[in-house]
């Protein structure tokens, strides 16, 4: 039976048009299948543009000691060994080829003296490894994929929101959504669906994520029966802007530290020297002079402690602030201007190496970073957890459903290294596109179930049918209250009773969300869009909190004040969340499969 909605039919439907989504769409269309691509915003505006530092790929252009094994070991160490080791292996092996491919598609990376792609240092990477374009690498990535992709015969649907995945039995067979411009609902029928919807930082009050980062893909997949993995691991990036208030949370790239920037408390002390974790001690300098030489590519120097992993640096900053040694607006100081002691013409050097940071602080904070230190503090940045996928194919446990990029989980374990995200997008975006196309070729179309479509439609437009007053409220207040609650209770430092409070709070917010009313009509109505995003935000917040309660230890992006140490027992499992038959969220532990001997040996060699 035909539905009442205009229907688009594809072999592969990709939801999300950031780096992973574009790369998946390009790969699928290159395999000769018909591809539709859904963008929540305009094409080329996705949050990938905000990535600054670079993409990690062991090309060895700057230091020829680098190779996939070192990259693999770095990724596993950074992820505290709960990563999907197969993904970490594939990622380290395939990233160089994916970067070279971007060059063949027109990307213009910064160069070494020999004319090769230049690579820079970043936290947790043993050698200079990040291919980059100044501090706007994400823009270069998305624009390259966009400009290549528009000639591939992909049908692009801009400013569409997907409200539900559609199923035929166990299998995902399409999606239902509307265009934001006119509010017209559409059925997308597809043999395979790839979710590449990025992050979920909008569940928190202070975040580097844009309005789009509401965890749509994770939530859509969950409600369609997909399992979620390790949702407790949220990365709080150590350096977000904190002043003025309107920019609170906006990212300050790690490259500032990679180029020699140092962290100081209000007493001018480089506090990062006070706490270097055991497993990084042998790689970390104790002498500031040596640390500086490291940032200037001295191969024999060890890294300064500012370039330890993000989880650790964020916690150290948090500690300084809590101890009353913070900056005036509740952060610490990040100083790159001091390098004038080291290099002549440092102002020009900084502007050339960090152009958008210079620009961002000049324009938004009226501060010249070549002359003064910045004030920074941790900001919710990245979800290591997400949809559980097969490492090789990016397939979920639901037939026909694939996931890649930030909304998928596994590669980064408990903590992601800077620069491993952009390479994640292109390595696993490609794989998802490839295997989704393969699935589409091997399977006939499923049937669209009208009842499912009607139910999704009813749920989506319900907020219009609730008259204002009579116990209803607008969507924005519910969103703010959720963000503040998650920030306070399931944030950078966690405690059992606070998280239990949050879990109960989420139930209350669900009840409020069910009564949200919006005014106006379907056309380009941000209040309505916010009401729809609430369901996703509440779903992922519940999953984060549930997993965080379950993990009674501290590891990577998950730090518990009541269990401040790592537990050897907890190193053996991942948390898996899924939707029970009664609609409730259930959690189980899953033992991490044993690593092959060859990979174990690589880790031993690199210790």
């Amino acid at each position, binding site marked *: 039976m035909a539905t009442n909605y205009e229907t688009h039919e594809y072999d592969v439907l990709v939801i999300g048009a950031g780096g992973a989504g574009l790369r998946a769409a390009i790969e699928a269309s290159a395999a000769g299948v018909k591809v539709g691509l859904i963008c929540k*915003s*305009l*094409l*080329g*505006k*996705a*949050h990938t*543009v*905000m990535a600054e530092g670079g993409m990690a790929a062991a090309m060895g252009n700057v230091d020829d000691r680098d190779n996939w094994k070192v990259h693999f070991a770095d990724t596993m160490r950074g992820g505290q060994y709960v990563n999907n080791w197969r993904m970490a292996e594939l990622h380290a092996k395939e990233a160089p080829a994916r970067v*070279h491919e971007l*060059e*063949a*598609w*027109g990307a*213009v990376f*910064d*160069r070494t003296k*020999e*004319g*090769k*792609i230049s690579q820079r240092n970043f936290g947790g990477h043993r050698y200079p490894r990040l291919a980059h*374009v100044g501090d*706007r690498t994400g*823009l*270069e990535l998305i*624009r390259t994929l966009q*400009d*290549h992709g*528009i*000639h591939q015969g992909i049908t692009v649907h*801009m400013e569409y929101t997907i409200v539900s995945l559609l199923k035929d039995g166990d299998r995902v067979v399409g999606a239902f959504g509307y265009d934001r*411009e006119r509010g017209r609902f559409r059925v997308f029928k597809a043999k395979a669906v790839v979710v590449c919807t990025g992050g979920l930082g909008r569940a928190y009050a202070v975040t580097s994520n*844009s*309005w*789009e980062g509401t965890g749509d893909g994770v939530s859509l997949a969950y409600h369609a029966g997909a399992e979620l993995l390790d949702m407790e691991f949220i990365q709080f990036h150590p350096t977000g802007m904190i002043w*003025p*208030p*309107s*920019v609170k949370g*906006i*990212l300050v790239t790690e490259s500032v530290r990679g180029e020699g920037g140092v962290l100081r408390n209000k007493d001018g002390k480089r506090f990062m020297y006070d706490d270097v974790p055991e497993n990084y001690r042998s790689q970390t300098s104790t002498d500031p002079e040596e640390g500086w030489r490291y940032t200037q590519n001295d191969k024999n120097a060890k890294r300064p402690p500012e370039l330890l992993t993000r989880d650790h640096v964020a916690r150290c900053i948090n500690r300084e602030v809590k101890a009353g040694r913070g900056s005036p607006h509740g952060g610490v100081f990040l100083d790159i201007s001091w390098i004038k002691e080291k290099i002549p013409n440092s102002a020009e050097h900084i502007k050339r190496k960090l152009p*958008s940071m210079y*620009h*961002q602080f000049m*324009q*938004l*904070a*009226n501060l010249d970073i070549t002359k003064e230190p910045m004030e920074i503090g941790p900001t919710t940045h990245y979800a290591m957890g997400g949809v559980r996928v097969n490492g090789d194919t990016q397939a979920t446990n639901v037939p026909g459903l694939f996931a890649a990029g930030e909304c998928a989980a596994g590669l980064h374990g408990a903590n992601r290294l800077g620069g491993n995200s952009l390479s994640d997008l292109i390595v696993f975006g490609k794989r998802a596109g490839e295997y989704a196309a393969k699935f589409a070729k091997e399977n006939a179309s499923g049937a669209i179930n009208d009842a499912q479509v009607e139910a999704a439609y009813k749920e989506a437009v319900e907020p219009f049918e609730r008259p204002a007053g009579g116990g209803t409220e*607008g*969507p*924005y207040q519910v969103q703010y209250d959720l963000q503040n609650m998650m920030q306070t209770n399931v944030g950078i430092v966690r405690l059992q009773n606070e998280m239990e409070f949050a879990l109960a709070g989420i139930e209350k917010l669900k009840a409020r969300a069910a009564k949200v009313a*919006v*005014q*106006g*009509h379907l*056309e*380009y*109505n*941000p*209040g309505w869009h916010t009401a729809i995003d609430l369901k996703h935000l509440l779903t992922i917040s519940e999953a984060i909190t549930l997993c965080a309660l379950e993990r009674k230890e501290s590891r990577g992006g998950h730090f518990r004040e009541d269990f401040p140490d790592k537990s050897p027992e907890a190193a053996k499992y991942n948390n898996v969340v899924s939707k029970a038959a009664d609609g409730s969220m259930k959690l189980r532990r899953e033992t991490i499969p044993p690593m092959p001997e060859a990979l174990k040996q690589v880790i031993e060699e690199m210790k």
Partner: protein
Amino acid sequence: MNKTVTFRIWRGDANGGKFVDYTTEITEGLVVLDVVHKIQAQQANDLAVRWNCKAGKCGSCSAEVNGMPKLMCMTRMDTLDITKPITIEPMRAFPSIRDLATDVSWNFRVKTKIKKFNPRKPDCEDGTWRMQQEDVDRVQEFRKCIECFLCQDVCHVLRDHHKHDEFIGPRFLVYTAALEMHPLDTEDRLAELKQSQGIGYCNITKCCTKVCPEHITITDNAIIPLKERVVDEFYDPFAWVWKKLRPKG
């Protein structure tokens, strides 16, 4: 200290609209987009406005603030005179969708018509190329573009003369320049520039350069060199004679 400000925001759609005044309190350090969001959350839930990164990197929140094309996220309130109402209108060179959101789809269609990047054979056996930094500096300047389309909005050929069918506008001249000056590219785009893409319409008033939030020197570094290449190709009499006389092959 809190101050009161009035935003005079254009509300409407393709069928027309009007300015509506919203008065609200502002605190220190806000940008225009913050105030628009505050009004949206408290007084006008259905106010349509595009935005994403809020850091001047995605180019979504383009609008005209007191008549000047700007990114709302990068326009600080302390740069504006708040004793008078501040007008916020959509980009006027594009059709209205609703309120501050305009239909910029024309730009996406134009881009697909420009010949794609076509690199020379790899320089090395491993499939990679060698390029010097100084040879890519100029192209990197062009590739800073965030596609906010403010240059298109301010260009009189598009805004006042509506030559959308005959002229691709500054954004796509920059895009073409980035391809033409790419050290690896082998394609020739000069004939289209002269004909269907209408580079001759640009009379270098440099309005585009002035409004570019990425400070790309659009006119001097991209458009004028392209104009010179077109002239060399099609209007230089010596080159024309040479091309007629030179041996084929």
